[in-house]
């Protein structure tokens, strides 16, 4: 795993009254233990990876408590895990990145929500919406509405988040309904503190096991007809009122009073801090959140409590709903509630704010200025107008002075084993033409950026091969699907490979066998090489030691199957060209083998440091470019994009274009040399082996 959570694991053990300092998502982790969970599961993905990663690393401590932790292979298996709470009074929590993870989990969630739960169940969603989001932009809210599951959106403040986790379990139990908690990216990574409580060892656990299944067979716990018809009624007749009662009684939503009693703002809890900044900018709030306009912060965004809404709006002329994303589910519900209760406050929301995308402070200042301009002309908001004008002026001035800046999207790491595969693909495309490339989710999606700029579709994690199923029969040229080993085990093996084989499809699949779910923090997979082999391999690739991907493919019936070392660009190009041009029908799979360079370097670095410290011989490899034979055409860069292969001023006074150069940080993966060979690029590349602590033989040899 990419990160060691030694310190964080310590803070999970904090006793009653101690102060926890740390990230939002780790505060949630601690809160789960304080709530006495019996089991935790999930699938990694920013921004919630740390929850599961830290739990996996804290296994010893969790064993002490009797808590079971499962790193599931996808969100569907994580969601299904919550089934344990249908029949037994045990609390469970799972986590994943949303919207994508919730989509994958949706089937199990529907059944879970129908059957209802006995033990509290909490689903922690990393709401990847807006800035920094790396998946399709959609809200998780729709799932809450259609399944009648409750959705928490706490104010991004550690004590509040922790409180909502604890209350969330109680709410779940009080209403027999699974509860989701959405945490935006920055809320997951916000660093703050809260006063800890003691962890509760669960009453039913790995240490205190149940004797067996429930004594009686209860059909109504199965989400199966005819029980489902009764369950569907239960949701709205019993569970929903119970939830509303609990939310109101425990004041999960917060009202912040203000002097302008005739106006009001209803805001999703997660946006509260941004709202205060916007109000401060308009001169309507102080740094401590005291606002002139009353605020209703919804820490529970579904269900709403009708009485809370009507009470807040009753004596007001106008309210505005600040709800990020589309459609405006909350605003519509509030409109219905107000209309039914005949509350006359004028309702604003998406009419003053934009429909799609994030609500930044700038957007809120503009929206609130519109709302208040219409309903509170007496308020002085000059500071807000000045601010907006100043920001516009600065941006214009900067654009004028700077022109267009070069973009800097993320790219493959130095020495990444996936880069050579794309070099080979680019080379072959020059000969046989560009194919339709079906992309997948994972590090390899960086190939959509320069210098590779390829990919025609991206349909989700593990979906690349499935997404080419309709393309292959309609195109003269064979399409190619690229998939990581993460995606392969998550979904690709069944949705892609099995479906292709069943339908006797044609096409090419490249599986990046780097050994881990690398993009999310190098979590382990079914095909991660054994610990022992990794130790022995040190800085070399160890992934050849596990053949479960190849065995799975052969077992399903893939006939054309090649495993190729990624860094041998010529061999990769040869295999790829053959796969793309052979007359052989059926699925052709290239397993591109090369261990994630992050993991290799992590093992290597301490060993090298020790060797050097002990004065032992060590050969350091670095690649370089001869500046006098480099003509500055940069074709090597167009085939690589490695961060350490860059340009510098041309030392030749007769030339102006910069020459290529290899800077510090090169890990000596060898791609430069391989590319120079495979593409017949140029003779300027050299490999230098610097011998640290050389022995007599080295020195003698060097003299020759």
């Amino acid at each position, binding site marked *: 795993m990419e990160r060691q959570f030694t310190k964080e694991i310590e803070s999970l053990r904090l006793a009653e009254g101690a102060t926890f300092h740390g990230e939002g998502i780790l505060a949630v982790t601690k809160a789960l233990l304080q709530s006495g969970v019996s089991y935790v599961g999930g699938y990694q993905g*920013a*921004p919630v990876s740390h929850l599961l990663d830290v739990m996996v690393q804290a296994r010893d401590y969790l064993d002490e408590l009797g808590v079971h932790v499962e790193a599931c292979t996808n969100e569907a298996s994580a969601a299904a895990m919550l089934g344990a709470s249908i029949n037994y009074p045990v609390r469970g929590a799972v986590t994943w990145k949303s919207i994508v993870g919730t989509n994958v989990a949706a089937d199990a969630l529907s059944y879970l929500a129908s059957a209802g739960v006995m033990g509290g169940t909490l689903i922690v969603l990393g709401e990847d919406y807006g800035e920094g989001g790396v998946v399709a932009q959609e809200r998780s809210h729709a799932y809450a509405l259609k399944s009648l599951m409750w959705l928490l959106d706490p104010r991004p403040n550690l004590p509040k988040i922790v409180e909502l986790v604890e209350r969330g379990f109680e709410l779940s139990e009080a209403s027999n309904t699974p509860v989701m908690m959405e945490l935006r990216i*920055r809320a997951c*990574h*916000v*660093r*703050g*503190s809260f006063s800890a409580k003691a962890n509760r060892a669960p009453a039913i656990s790995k240490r205190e096991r149940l004797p067996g299944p429930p004594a009686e067979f209860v059909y109504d716990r199965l989400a199966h007809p005819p029980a489902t018809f009764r369950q569907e009624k239960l949701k709205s007749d019993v569970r929903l009122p119970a939830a509303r009662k609990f939310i109101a009684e425990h004041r999960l939503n917060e009202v912040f009073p203000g002097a302008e009693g005739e106006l009001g703002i209803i805001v999703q809890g997660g946006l509260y801090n*941004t709202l*205060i*900044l916007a109000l401060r900018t308009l001169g309507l709030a102080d*740094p401590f959140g005291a606002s002139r306009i009353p605020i209703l912060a919804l820490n529970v965004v579904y269900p709403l409590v009708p009485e809370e809404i009507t009470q807040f709006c009753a004596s007001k002329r106008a309210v505005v709903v600040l709800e990020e994303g589309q459609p405006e589910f909350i605003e519509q519900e509030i409109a219905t509630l107000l209309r039914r209760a005949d509350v006359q406050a004028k309702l604003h929301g998406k009419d003053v704010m934009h429909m799609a995308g994030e609500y930044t402070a700038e957007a809120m200042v503009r929206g609130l200025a519109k709302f208040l301009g219409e309903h509170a002309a007496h308020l002085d908001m000059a500071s807000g107008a000045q*601010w907006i004008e*100043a*920001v516009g002026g*600065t*941006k214009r001035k*900067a*654009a004028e002075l*700077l022109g267009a*800046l*070069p*973009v*800097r999207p*993320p*790219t*493959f790491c130095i020495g990444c084993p996936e880069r050579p595969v794309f070099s080979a693909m680019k080379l072959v495309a*020059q*000969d*046989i033409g560009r194919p339709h490339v079906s992309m997948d989710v994972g590090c390899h999606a960086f190939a959509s950026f*320069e210098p590779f700029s390829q990919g025609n579709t991206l349909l989700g994690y593990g979906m690349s091969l499935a997404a080419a199923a309709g393309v292959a029969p309609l195109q003269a040229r064979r399409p190619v699907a690229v998939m990581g080993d993460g995606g392969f085990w998550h979904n690709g093996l069944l949705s892609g490979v099995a479906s292709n084989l069943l339908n006797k499809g044609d096409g090419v699949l490249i599986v990046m066998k780097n050994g881990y779910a690398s993009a999310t923090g190098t979590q382990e997979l079914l095909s991660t090489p054994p610990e022992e082999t990794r130790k022995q391999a040190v800085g070399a690739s160890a992934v050849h030691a596990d053949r479960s991907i190849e065995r799975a493919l052969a077992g399903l019936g893939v006939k054309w199957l090649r495993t190729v070392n990624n860094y041998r660009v*010529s061999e990769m190009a040869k295999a790829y060209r053959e796969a793309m041009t052979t007359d052989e029908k059926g699925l052709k799979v290239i397993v591109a083998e090369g261990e994630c360079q992050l993991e290799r370097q992590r093992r290597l670095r301490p060993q090298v440091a020790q060797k050097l410290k002990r004065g032992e011989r060590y050969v*350091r490899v670095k690649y*370089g470019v*001869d500046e006098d034979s480099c*003509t*500055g*055409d*940069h*074709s090597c860069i*167009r085939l690589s994009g490695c961060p350490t*292969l*860059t*340009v510098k001023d041309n*030392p030749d*006074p007769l*030339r102006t*274009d*910069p020459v290529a150069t290899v800077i*510090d940080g090169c890990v000596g993966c060898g791609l430069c040399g391989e590319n120079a*060979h495979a593409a*017949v690029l*140029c*003779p300027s*590349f050299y490999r*230098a082996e610097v*011998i640290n602590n*050389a022995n007599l033989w080295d020195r003698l*040899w*060097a003299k020759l």
Partner: protein
Amino acid sequence: MSLPERPITILIAALGGEGGGVMADWLMEAATAVDLPAQATSIPGVAQRTGATTYYLEIYPVRKSELGGREPVLSLTPSPGNVDIMVASELVEAGRAMANGYVSPERTTLIASTHRIYATVEKMQMADGRYEADKVVAAARELAKLTVLFDMRKLAEESGTIINAVLFGAMAGSGALPLARERCEDAIRKGGRGAEASLRGFAAGYDIARGSRKPPEQPAAPKRATELADIMRLADERLRDYQGKRYAELYRRRMEPFVRGDARVAATVARHLATWMSYEDIIRVADLKTRASRFERVRREVGAKGDEPVVVIDYLKPGIEEFASVMPAPLGRRLVAWAERRGKLDAYNIGMHIKTSGLFGYALVRSLAWLRPLRPSSYRYAEEQGLIERWLGYVAEAAKRDAGLAYEIADCARLIKGYGETHRRGKGNFLAIADALIENPPTAEAGEQASAIRKAREAALADPEGKALGTTLGKPVVWMKPVKSS
């Protein structure tokens, strides 16, 4: 007491692996140690790999004990016009911060390193795609309230640490941080690992921001020959070294029609002619690779210390073109023509890893350099000189009409560079422009023709795969080789 209206806000723009997260930790630690309310957020995930990423902090500059239980509501997201300290670990990232409105003249102290880490789009162009970084420095002086700009990467290297320590020091030294130097240093110490080196970097950054220490010297701008006399002198040296005195004289003769003409045209022709005439064939490359100065340079570039042995392995892959290039012209021509007909130009390349630092490898490569006397009768020589004459003819012809047009044509020589496929492609682009815009120009007006040539040349350089050039020329430039039936 009256409390401050707002917290101190700090936005850190860093690239993956520069320790931005550690810096945020130091700031949180230092603020928490003196009881100031503080909050930090970030957007990690894949952006942290190698792309641009940011960390954002807010510190309320009054101790919690003096707030009577009240807690400031701190923002999780930076907003334009609301940043007190903008930190950028690289110059273009500082530019990006300004473009996004995070640097305002009323409020922002901008602390940035002036070194460049080039983005892929800047590096991959055929010519020079680098962003003009001076613009960022100029904009910073205009848009920030206060700037601390120097090469912090260099300083970090000198201090044996990474850039975050220097940035932190500069931040503390700028006076914009509500934290005393000692508190910051305590936070670094508490961080443990590498604290000594970080403290050195911190102190250096602090002193420079304070003005009590000079920032590191900027490396001198590269020497460029721009005056005709300088260029011709360098060309003379270069071509004597390349092929001898008579070859250098050929250069002078070729320059004669231009030296008294338009100065810009003359300088451009002189420069390109010198590099074109010293084209990189196998003999030249072998010569350059076996010079003593080259091995010295490699040692320097890979950072070999003292007497550490360095083994140098060269990647050569000569093929039909390379062999033909040193063959007598008629023979070489026939070989290349045969290979082209069969689509076998790249089919027989021999990949070699030659240990040039070893006795055998050195002798092998050096022996190729000894073929120099045969060069004038070689196939490649005949080809290159033919094309050079053609190009010079175009320029001379155009010079009679319009100096601007002559200049644009002269600069098209820039297209021909590289080796193997890249070289063929560059040459093809040159010929495509020559055909469409020089020999068969769509317009008789010199200014229009010149501008069309410039556009086509720029398109070919920006996008060597030829799509943009095709669009500019109004017809596709197809570089895909014919599909071989297998």
